[in-house]
């Protein structure tokens, strides 16, 4: 009898839990590149609007694109814009399209762990391509040592670290390498998941940062904030105008300057290797992938509300995390585009 009573109470509690009045939960997944600012945003937004919870899982742009196409999450996020095939696949599957909304500007930086080197190394495009192609294997190779006179580079083997998961950061990095190296373009190409010639795989920006931090003589590519938050040195890259530029708010904003004026309607644009002497060559927008139609009006309104907030108030907190704000023209254009979500 007693056992039955306990069971009955348990079932009642369970019912209470299952049928309780829940806040609206909106699920998203995707890029790890902007995860620090997204998690801050969603946290702040939830404090402002306690009835709405945005659950964002940082699983990589590849997974973000895939899961939003499958419909298992309400929105996605990516730093590598969906290509035409992927857009068509979405359209075919759902009967309506999916929209890109840029959120912030960020930079992919080369971060490394070399004993005795705590400052910023200069990397030319050839050096960068050579390292990731596996052709430059030692840290004291002339291609690296050349622009870094005065730095004591050891004769140790370079440990390349890349992403093991489908990644928009990989897309940005390989997009840049494809623009500056024909060999990279023909041998490897650009994408969220490529056939890396060399290197270890880490999961997410978090995993790559972790590996670089723990592995002597490693070099990896991560979003700026990951290197900054973890106090690991990162290098400057030679841009199209010939100057060695380190990633920061000014150089990333400069990279977006020309693209901002000519932003296409679907917001898909690449700003790597941008012109301009102050531009950081491995910069990129990052996008939220929002379906153009929602059957659930509550979710739709919550998402549209968030987008409006993100373009206005949200931009105020991005610089503290080393992301650059959206250029004014882009923000204006985006505000109008929010109406496309129905």
């Amino acid at each position, binding site marked *: 009898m007693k056992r039955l009573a306990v069971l009955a109470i348990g079932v009642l509690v369970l019912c209470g839990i299952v049928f309780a009045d829940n806040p609206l939960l909106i699920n998203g997944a995707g890029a790890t590149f902007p995860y620090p600012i997204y998690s801050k945003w969603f946290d702040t937004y939830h404090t402002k609007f306690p009835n709405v919870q945005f659950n964002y899982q940082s*699983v*990589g742009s*590849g*997974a*973000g*694109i*895939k*899961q939003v*196409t499958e419909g298992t999450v309400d929105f996605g996020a990516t730093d590598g814009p969906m290509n035409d095939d*992927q857009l068509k*696949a979405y359209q075919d599957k759902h009967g309506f399209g999916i929209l890109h909304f840029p959120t912030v500007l960020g930079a992919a930086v080369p971060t490394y762990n070399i004993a005795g080197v705590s400052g910023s190394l200069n990397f030319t495009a050839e050096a960068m391509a050579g390292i990731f192609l596996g052709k430059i294997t030692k840290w004291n190779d002339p291609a690296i040592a050349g622009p870094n006179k005065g730095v004591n580079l050891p004769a140790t*083997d370079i*440990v390349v670290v890349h992403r*093991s*998961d*489908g990644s928009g950061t990989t897309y940005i990095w390989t997009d840049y390498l494809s623009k500056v190296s024909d060999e990279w373009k023909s041998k490897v*190409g650009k*994408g*969220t*998941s*490529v*056939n*890396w010639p060399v*290197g*270890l*795989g*880490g*999961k997410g920006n978090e995993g790559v940062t972790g*590996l670089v931090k*723990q*592995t*002597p003589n*490693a070099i990896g590519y991560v979003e700026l904030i990951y290197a900054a938050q973890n106090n690991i040195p990162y290098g400057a890259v030679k841009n199209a105008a010939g100057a060695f530029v380190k990633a920061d708010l000014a150089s990333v904003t400069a990279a977006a300057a020309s693209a901002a004026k000519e932003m296409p309607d679907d917001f898909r644009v690449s700003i790597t290797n941008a012109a301009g002497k102050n531009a950081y060559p491995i910069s990129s927008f990052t996008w939220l992938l929002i379906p153009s139609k929602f059957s659930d009006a509550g979710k739709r309104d919550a998402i549209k509300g968030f987008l409006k907030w993100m373009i206005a108030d949200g931009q105020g907190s991005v610089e503290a995390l080393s992301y650059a704000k959206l250029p004014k023209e882009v923000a204006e254009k985006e505000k109008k585009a929010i109406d496309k979500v129905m």
Partner: protein
Amino acid sequence: MKGAGPSAGSRTFFSKLREGDEIARLVTMIFAATVVVIVAALVWELWTNSALPRQKFGFHFFVTEVWDPIADQYGALPFVYGTLVTSIVALLIAVPLGIGAAIFLAELAPPRVSDTLQFFIDLLAAVPSVIYGLLGVFIIVPVMRTVIFPALNTPFGFLPIFKGPSYGVGFFTAGIVLAIMVIPYIISVSREVLLSVPRDQREAALALGSTRWESTWKVVVPFARTGIMGSIFLALARALGETMAVTMVIGNTPKVAASLFAPGYSIAAVIANEFTEATGDLYLQSLIELGLVLFLLTFILNGLARILIIVTTQKGSGVAG
């Protein structure tokens, strides 16, 4: 109570039904059948959802090293290689240790000590994979890089399997972590099997003048040999399917490499890393085909293991005293 009496053929279906027995039989049968249905559904899902790569690549799938999502070219070789290499390394470490420990527990230790130690070994088997992964990342990887690699590479670096460089992560590290995970299985099954060897076998050997060790190693262990083999198969099956601990320390690089210190990949690890992001049917189904391969491997090994263990324990109990 309805009169039951000895069961007679004259009781009709409906009278049995009224007594509830038939209902009970049907209900429990449905639940038992559910198990069979679930397993059948699992195999069917794996098979049908891997049709594309099976048609496109056929057996080439297993000998191709390329894993290129952009070019949509997929080959299972690096993953099969990594799975096998790490498992073999694990067995090379775990089998001597495990059998040694089992011999101690079965032959030497007084029963209470043996039972207590076995209790702790069973607890070791209960430690989840992700915790082994934690320890692997923070303890074994640095030790590999700072202690084991120099110790092996400096004298033996000319051998392909000990070639550098070492990153800490790699086949060897994954093998060590797997070894720790499978030792409990080897120990508990081998101990059981050794305990089931009839006493007279040992006593006969000792009566003929052998030392304790000789009677163990030359008589008892060979008698239990098949069962011990079974425990090794069991351990191998466990090692093949391990996911989390391996993906945290193997380096996640889809390449075949001769050196044990090189980073690699395993079937389970690549599925864990790439499943949720595989866009395109061929990509996803290639991963599922890998899952099917893993399933078949563990299925065969587990089946063999069971047969070997049963044969040995029956042999032990069947021999006349």
